[in-house]
């Protein structure tokens, strides 16, 4: 059995020691590699020895907890620790990457050698010795997760479960999924940057299932922030559960949705996932740099209606998509992507910024040390407009009113997207009428942003998990909007 070359090779990696000091790890061996700048300099130098334009080292530690309650029982409690470090070399358009889970200088030197394979025979730069950098933080924590006893997590879940079941006798089951984690990062690169930080993340999900003997509906409500336990004072477990239960009951009366092209009013909040998919992904610069993205060559052009302004902002206080600095060390910032219909910016990482000769926008993110950074969204939203949501609805003769979406996806090259509605209603004569069963909405990104003709004044955000070969935590935000003419996949002709 080859357990990574044998059991107990190294002492507990010091990266985690400061995170888990309250958890049973005792005082650790000497100063850790994460603070040994001379050692990190040696690793970076090794990575660039064969050639290359840029190299970085990324060290990460993560402690996570997940507790699951199903059918009023605590099904499982999970506690996980993971740590590792990766070395990356960029040479021209090429990237080499290797990682190790045992953070020793020897292993990092070996990773540097593997990563440098892509730079063989390339031109070489001399790395700058690293020095501690400063980045602004947009996350404040009042009740740190590590001070919270598990019994308090359990209590939050019991409260949510009870509130869901008390809402209506037709709520047959609640699934409560509590997640928290603390991620610590150290970034060092050949430009001389050295940064470290630690971010907590709370994610609380309530799903409820209603059943009236004929129909069933599963709904979902989620809250998430980079926050301590105070999140549950801002939004109580009861109100999260009641929001899920309300949808479960409302949708029991759903009828088949109609099929074909019609107008759609999207309620504010996580409907923002429409913009995340349909416009956000195609504005990530990696496919633009490859010359195949849907928005390739459209910078400065009018791509949307004048009411449409879109922003990605990694600095919104404590938001789930907020990052302080990205996983390449670039300061998070507010990036204007589309301004009154005109394309103003792409979201870049270091590689795509270099390839496109653009500035770094702070969107180089990675799921963990097992992944290379790629351009990703943070908190992406449509800027609010002038109309009240009531005005937009009243002004819509017929169509579909979408209140929540299960999720969606887009092909960033063709720009064709889809979303699945979870809670939706018919609009008849400017009024919301009866609920309709989960229908898919599909269209093309260029089509949808040139068809948004009304934007409300009620911007709200929802938390999401975005997958692009690797996961990233994001929010999507949107005021109420109306889209003229979108294809609705109902089963009624």
């Amino acid at each position: 059995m080859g357990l990574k070359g044998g059991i107990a090779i190294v002492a507990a990696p010091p990266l985690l020691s400061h995170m888990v000091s309250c958890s049973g790890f005792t005082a650790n061996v000497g100063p850790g590699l994460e603070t040994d700048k001379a050692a990190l300099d040696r690793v970076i130098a090794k990575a660039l020895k064969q050639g290359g334009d840029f190299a970085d080292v990324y060290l990460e530690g993560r402690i996570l907890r997940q507790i699951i309650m199903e059918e009023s029982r605590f099904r499982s409690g999970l506690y996980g620790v993971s740590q590792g470090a990766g070395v990356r070399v960029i040479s021209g358009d090429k990237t080499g990457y290797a990682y190790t889970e045992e953070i020793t200088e020897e292993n990092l030197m070996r990773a540097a050698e593997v990563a440098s394979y892509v730079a063989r025979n390339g031109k070489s730069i001399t790395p700058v010795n690293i020095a501690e950098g400063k980045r602004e933080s947009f996350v404040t924590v009042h009740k740190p997760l590590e001070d919270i006893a598990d019994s308090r997590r359990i209590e939050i879940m019991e409260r949510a479960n009870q509130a869901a079941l008390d809402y209506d006798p037709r709520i047959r089951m609640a699934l409560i999924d509590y997640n928290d984690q603390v991620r610590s990062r150290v970034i060092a690169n050949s430009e001389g940057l050295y940064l470290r930080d630690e971010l907590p993340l709370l994610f609380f999900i309530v799903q409820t299932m209603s059943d009236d003997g004929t129909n069933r509906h599963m709904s979902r409500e989620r809250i998430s922030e980079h926050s301590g336990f105070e999140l549950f004072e801002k939004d109580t477990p009861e109100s999260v559960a009641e929001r899920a239960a309300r949808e479960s009951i409302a949708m029991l009366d759903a009828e088949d949705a109609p099929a074909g092209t019609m107008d759609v009013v999207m309620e504010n909040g996580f409907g923002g996932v429409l913009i995340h998919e349909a416009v956000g992904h195609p504005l990530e610069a990696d496919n633009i740099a490859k010359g195949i993205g849907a928005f390739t060559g459209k910078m400065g052009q009018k791509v949307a209606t004048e009411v449409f302004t879109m922003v990605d902002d990694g600095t919104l206080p404590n938001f789930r998509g907020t990052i302080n600095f990205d996983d390449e060390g670039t300061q998070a910032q507010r990036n204007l992507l589309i301004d009154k219909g005109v394309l103003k910016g792409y979201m870049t990482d270091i590689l795509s910024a270099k390839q496109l000769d653009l500035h770094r926008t702070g969107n180089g993110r990675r799921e963990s040390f097992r992944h290379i950074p790629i351009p990703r969204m943070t908190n992406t939203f449509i800027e609010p407009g002038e109309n009240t949501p009531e005005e937009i609805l009243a002004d819509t003769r017929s169509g579909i009113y979408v209140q929540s979406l299960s999720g969606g996806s887009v092909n960033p090259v063709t720009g064709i997207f889809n979303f699945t509605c979870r809670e939706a209603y018919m609009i008849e004569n400017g009024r919301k009428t009866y609920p309709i069963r989960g229908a898919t909405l599909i269209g093309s990104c260029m089509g949808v942003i040139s068809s948004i003709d009304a934007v409300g004044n009620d911007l709200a955000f929802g938390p999401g998990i975005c997958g692009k070969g690797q996961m990233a935590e994001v929010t999507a935000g949107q005021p109420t909007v109306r889209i003229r003419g979108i294809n609705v996949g109902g089963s009624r002709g």
Partner: protein
Amino acid sequence: MGAREVEVYIQNSRNLTVRVRNEDIETIQEAAAGGVGFRVLVDGGMGFSHCNDFNDRSLNDTLERAIAFARLTTPDEHNRLPDDMPHQEVEGLYDPEIARLPMEKKIGMALELEAYAMKDERITHSSGASFGEGESEIIIANSNGMLKTYRSSSCYVGVSVVAEKGDQRHTGWESCSRRFFEDMEPLEKIGAAAAKKAYEMVDPRMVSTQRAAVIFDPAVARSIVGGIIAAINGERVLQGASFLKDAMDEVFASGLLTIVDDGLRRRGMGSKPFDGEGVPAGTRTLVEEGVLRSFLYNTHAALRAGVESTGNASRGGFTSLPGIGTHNLYLKAGPHTPEEILANTQRGLLLKGVTGYGINPVNGNYSGGASGFWIENGQISHPVQGLTIAGSADDILRNIDMMADDLDMARSFTAPTFRVSEMQIGGA
């Protein structure tokens, strides 16, 4: 320490991914990883913990965390670990040749594949080609005396290209995954298939909203079959969250529908000697000529249902608890060629691409985005995209009226071409 039952799940793996684009290397990523997950039962309560550090102190701390959690969770008499049952080895899970191939050969294959996919002049851009390989060793031990291990390998090539014409862009993608390197499909065939998927979609036309036949290509069968599999997940059935919860031994689909799960196929991508908690894998008919014959269970769900585990505990690695999943799943082939099905379709959609979540396992509702070809008078008329298709599982599954013979058993989730006689199609 108070644990009544303990399971140790260890996974060690090694992966390499080479990506090329525009005739040059784009990324090379290598990783060796491993870790351990502890599942602990204390008086029926379950705790789970994992770490990727095999240091004694980390292991002890991690195990203690699982025990602490087990004391907090609700006692459940169905929380048991499986007994040590003998299992059958599966032939052809590990190919030592893959790791021995030189790096230059792997890069060369990705480059060659990209070149084949770019050969047709209608293909204007490459999104990249890749070669991937992985091997993994799994060890499961538990306090009922179980100690089991197996090793597996896989290799993979894939390519994605773009056909651009004016403002139109169409993507085409093809891949091949095998346990053994020698079983890989010829690169020329894979490249040509990717190119065809892109250029054959050029100049799509819209059709009106209507009801018509839909022919499901094997590539999109999952949107239908995936919903059935999720709906016969034993856990979901016990929770009442399945549209098939009351369908056991009932006719719920066309007589043409037979679905088998086979864990033991030689060199199968989904094959394994035992499931994610060490229960022997087997071969099981889930649906027989339209009649539901079996739900899928792991140990916990089976105990709760009062039956035996079907050996379908899935595991997402050492960081996750056992769920429920299939091994090599296939929908049994029928008598027709795909060409016969097309020729017998007056008007309808040959479905090549779908988006969305497939059949909703809770209530059987189906709605998705659709692309492919429009059929008139038994012949392909033109490409279509931006359509929707929808229906209820009940209608769709009972209306499967033709089943083809083009079943590719090299895939771990596979179906032949089949036709649904009528579905709602949304268009202009």
